[in-house]
């Protein structure tokens, strides 16, 4: 090896080392698409929190004399719906429902799914078979169909939407976590911990779960996108949050019936869903690549 080659080699290893040391956040920011996603998610969160300040009108106040106005007419930014409610303000308030359901439902699914997955993967045997057979059973239902069925039984309402989408999320988390636990369980440091006499609970919560966290986080991010779409779908079908609560799905549902008279209702509510879901997916893709490009989630 010539000295130049050797030097190049050294520079390269140094670069590699530096790259590894780059923080996760910097990696994410350098990925332009992921950064874009993050910015939109940030803006959306701001919109949801400060909805009363951003909205130009009361989202639920009706004025039939001003129904179905077009974009910008009489000071209504995106026009009004069939009840004369301001579409822009309703979309602003709708972001709250999307975010609340997206986060709460995924949290619900993640907590219960992870618990089941850990127990199945860690203890194995009969318990594993029983839990995972049940998860397979839940998996046999298309996600949205499971949520629809649960909603018909539970009835409309924000809490029930969270519950229904949360339950539909359980089997996915159980599978991902179980797979991770099976991998981590066999590693040497777990065996050492066990041979030192650590209790199962301690091993699970201090060692197994923290070491399976990366894929869980990526999967959860993607699931938030799915939960937001599902909430919109349920509200679109009239099975989601109760009217007159503004949700992007329910605005779209109303908009569908007034496509000819005012296409803005359907157009802008749906665009909000698309942009939000796209941003979360972009961020999730970036997060996966930053954590481990080979990760299969």
């Amino acid at each position, binding site marked *: 090896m010539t000295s130049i080659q050797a030097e190049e080699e050294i520079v390269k290893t140094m670069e590699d080392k530096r790259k590894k040391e780059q923080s996760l956040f910097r990696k994410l920011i350098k990925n332009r698409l992921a950064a874009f996603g993050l910015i939109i998610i940030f803006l959306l969160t701001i919109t949801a929190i400060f909805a009363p300040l951003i909205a130009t009108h009361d989202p639920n106040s009706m004025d039939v004399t001003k129904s179905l106005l077009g974009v910008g007419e009489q000071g209504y930014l995106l026009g009004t719906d069939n009840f004369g409610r301001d579409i822009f303000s309703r979309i602003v308030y709708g972001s709250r429902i999307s975010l609340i359901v997206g986060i709460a439902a995924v949290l619900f699914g993640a907590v219960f799914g992870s618990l089941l997955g850990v127990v199945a993967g860690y203890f194995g045997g009969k318990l594993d078979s029983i839990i995972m057979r049940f998860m397979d059973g*839940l998996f046999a239902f298309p*996600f949205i169909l499971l949520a629809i069925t649960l909603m018909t039984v539970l009835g409309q309402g924000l809490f029930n939407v969270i519950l229904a989408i949360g339950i539909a999320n359980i089997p996915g988390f159980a599978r991902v976590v179980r797979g991770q636990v099976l991998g981590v369980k066999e590693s040497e440091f777990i065996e050492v911990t066990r041979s030192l006499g650590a209790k199962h609970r301690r091993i699970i919560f201090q060692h197994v779960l923290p070491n399976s966290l990366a894929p869980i986080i990526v999967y959860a991010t993607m699931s938030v996108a799915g939960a937001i779409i599902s909430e919109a779908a349920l509200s679109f079908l009239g099975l989601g949050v109760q009217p007159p609560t503004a949700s992007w799905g329910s605005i779209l549902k109303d908009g569908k019936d007034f496509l000819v008279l005012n296409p803005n209702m359907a157009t802008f509510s749906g665009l909000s869903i*698309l942009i939000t879901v796209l941003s979360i*997916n972009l961020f999730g893709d970036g997060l996966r690549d930053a954590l481990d490009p080979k990760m299969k989630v």
Partner: protein
Amino acid sequence: MGKYIFSRLINMIPTLFIVAIIVFLITRMIPGDPASVMLGPQASREDVEALTEALGLNEPIHIQFLQYIGNLLQGDFGVSLSYNQPITDLIINRFPNTVVLAVSALIIAFMIGVPAGIISASKQNSLIDYSITTISLIGVSMPIFWLGVMLVLYFSVNLGWFPATGMGSMDDGFISYLKHLILPSITLATIPTATFARITRSSMLEVITQDYIKTARSKGISEFIVISKHAFKNAFNPLLTVLGLQISSLLGGAVLTETIFSWPGMGLLIMDAIEKRDFVVVQSTVLFIALIFVMVNLVVDILYKVVNPKISYSTNKGGTK
């Protein structure tokens, strides 16, 4: 192979059983008295009691469950009160329409998604690659119920090219049938098309850099043959593995698509039944879709083994797939 299929069939039985249990449990979650919920607030006491009797709801829960399983084993899904006919007949009428929709969507997805992924991978980092990647990313993020409404807005309301709702009858000719089918099947095809494009691209990129592709190229085989024959053959497996999941989301998407376009399939049947509070129909159709999905998944798994005869297969316990 026969042994594998047999063991998978045996393995399917507990899953089917659990699916039936889940549906039973969910329908028993209805708060209050199901019979009075189904009949509405105006129903008389006698009617409620008669329905409770007819549905067997006054039996203890384990007897109810045994009756339910017993009926299912005989292929009896019960009788619909609102349609006044056996649910099996309803399903036989509606299910083929959903199959037509789902299969057309799947065909579109394969015909567009797979070539798009191949082109994208073989021209990596070009403008066309970026366009395809961006479009497919938008595709997987698409709320298809919104896309459906937008397609109606532009192609039915504004341009008047396609009918907005309904399923054309074959009596009006094949063209009419096709015209009714186009918008719903495009709507339903969006997510699988984008998913196929993304998966084909990533698996093709993995394959293209391998030595045997370089060898094939160095032998002077045309690039088209290298890509379409040598590379794609090995990039095909990941597509098969996601096919099962895609079919699940297709069946779910069909419910939404059918609602938008009033396509008379299983999804519309479920939504109608929900509106009429006919829970027996909801329960049976949901169960039927889940059973179909389990069986389709089995076929996909067997197909996977046919394509990959070398992979050794141990019976899969515990559900990792």
